[in-house]
């Protein structure tokens, strides 16, 4: 699904990613840990192709396409979808209209989707205008449900979210990742899984999201490099006990 090879990225002349190698398979959910400022968000923003993130070396391959220098909208149309941490307010653009734009002409029931994330009341409000932390997360998920990405990039699902919202966000994220499928008379589980091939790349500090989704692998980003591949729960337990000290040793 996604291959990243020796990726070097600069922001305003400063190198933030210093040779990242990462591969995420179909239906795999990958968790990225790491201290603040280590380059996690930069990696997501670079995969999405934002203008301030300059690739100086390396490659990003998505579903066989080299997208290293592709415009953001092409990446989105190929199936990369991102949940923004601090999305901008767009005056005069209603949430409802943006959700419709996200579906790119596919038939969707905006009201029904909004109900799932408890956002019905926000459909006629300007997007992100005065939204709280939890509301932003729910609005981002609503847009992603309309977008149906094949690779879900999710930057800190738990930031600014209370416990009640966390459960809702966790469940919807799980659904977006194609996890928790119910067997149905029409199709076997195997078939359903083949129909929905969704991968995820999720940044987390607290690990709360791991209570809701099945994560396959995880790594730690430290000072622009990835290290310490392990099962996400093991990484989390280790960080809780020892912090990121061991990562430094492992990178030397």
């Amino acid at each position, binding site marked *: 699904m996604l291959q990243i090879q020796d990726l070097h990225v600069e922001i305003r002349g400063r190198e933030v990613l210093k040779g990242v190698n990462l591969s995420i398979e179909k239906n795999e959910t990958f968790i990225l840990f790491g201290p603040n400022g280590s380059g996690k968000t930069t990696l997501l923003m670079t995969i999405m192709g934002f*203008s301030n993130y300059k690739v100086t070396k390396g490659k990003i391959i998505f579903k066989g396409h080299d997208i290293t220098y592709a415009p*953001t909208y092409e990446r989105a149309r190929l199936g990369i979808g991102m949940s923004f941490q601090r999305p901008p307010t767009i005056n005069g653009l209603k949430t409802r209209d943006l959700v419709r*734009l996200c579906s790119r002409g596919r038939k969707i029931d905006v009201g029904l989707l909004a109900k799932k994330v408890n956002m019905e009341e926000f459909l006629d409000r300007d997007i992100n205008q005065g939204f709280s932390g939890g509301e932003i997360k729910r609005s981002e998920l609503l847009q992603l449900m309309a*977008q149906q990405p094949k690779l879900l990039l999710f930057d800190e699902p738990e930031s600014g979210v209370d416990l009640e919202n966390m459960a809702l966000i966790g469940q919807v994220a799980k659904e977006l990742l194609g996890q928790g499928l119910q067997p149905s008379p029409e199709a076997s589980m195997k078939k359903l899984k083949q129909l929905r091939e969704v991968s995820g790349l999720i940044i987390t500090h607290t690990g709360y999201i791991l209570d809701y989704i099945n994560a396959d692998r995880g790594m730690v980003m430290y000072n622009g490099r990835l290290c310490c591949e392990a099962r996400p729960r093991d990484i989390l337990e280790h960080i809780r006990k020892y912090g990121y000290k061991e990562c430094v040793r492992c990178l030397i």
Partner: protein
Amino acid sequence: MSDIEKTKEDINIDDFLFDGDEVQEIEDLREIDERDKKNLLMAGIDLEEKERSGTFLHINHSKAHCKTCTPGVEVLDIKEALDKYDSLPEYYWQAVDPKKDKYTQAVFEKLHGGYFIKTEKGAKIDKPIQSCLFIKKDKVGQNVHNIIIVEEDSELHIITGCSVAHDVKAALHLGISEIYIKKGGKLTFTMIHNWGPEVHVRPRSVCIVEEGGVFLNNYILLKPVKSAQLYPTIYLNGTGAVSTSNSILVAPPGSYLNVGGRMILNAPETRAEIISRTITTGGTIVAPGHIQGNAVPVKGHLECKGLILKDGTIHAIPELEGTVAGVELSHEAAVGKVAQEEIEYLMARGLDEDEATSTIVRGFLNVDIMGLPPELKQAIDQTIEEAGEDMF
């Protein structure tokens, strides 16, 4: 103001024809030339007159159509009103000074017509009254004088559209409007300008609002005009009077707009809000706004946002003036381009750069706050859509 700006705004009145273009009355608006109908629709005129409480149409130098079918509101040509009401001593030239400038003076000296609209006390008129001031002949100079009286506790919405015939090149429109909102009255006044690329426009408007009165003033200009100069002044003279002014302006190459407004808060508990959204796609926009607080407690807010898409000039001039301690006046002005962050947000949802930009611009020019009838809102959205095609 620079000398160049002054020259651009100074019109030689003698270049235009002020005599001899009286027109025949039009009984049924549907008889209007097909090509002109479109211009009228864009200026908010419902030719079927179904969703309107009355219609006034002035063409070139005379009244062409005047009809009202709703009790509680009177619509007349100003000349008839002056005859009927002994020259309207309380209202005619009472808010606007005839010597204000040469354009005002010209209307004072020679009057072609204009509308007189007056509600009865307590009348709530739910469908809008529509008026249109139309220029149908090249080189015409049009002098109109409008008077609106919203009596105590009555409510009215006026949609006034101004337009020119498809084949008119140069024209000059001079319009005086005097608006009186009595105690507890409420007026929504929506003006839509749909002129041509060689037309000059000089409206001069003053509104006086008494105790508890409400004045919602909307102005929309999306189409090319050679020059437009408007600076309506609104006096909130009675306790608790409220006024909001919204304007949406687009200046294509060749357009010169000097469009602003002034609100004078003369009584306690009054509130004023001036909101303007301007876009230049190559033309020049000067947007002066002035709020003056002369009593307490009062609140005033001025918001002036401008986008320069590629070329053009926007000159925002927000002015706040408090003359007593305790006034609360604020402003927010910004001139810039479409934010890259917003474009990228939409691009991450699959919109290409042009789609993203036009989506943001449409949001910026949002007319939802104006409370317009749905078919008019639709016509405006369509105009914005069409204007958008030229923008990018």
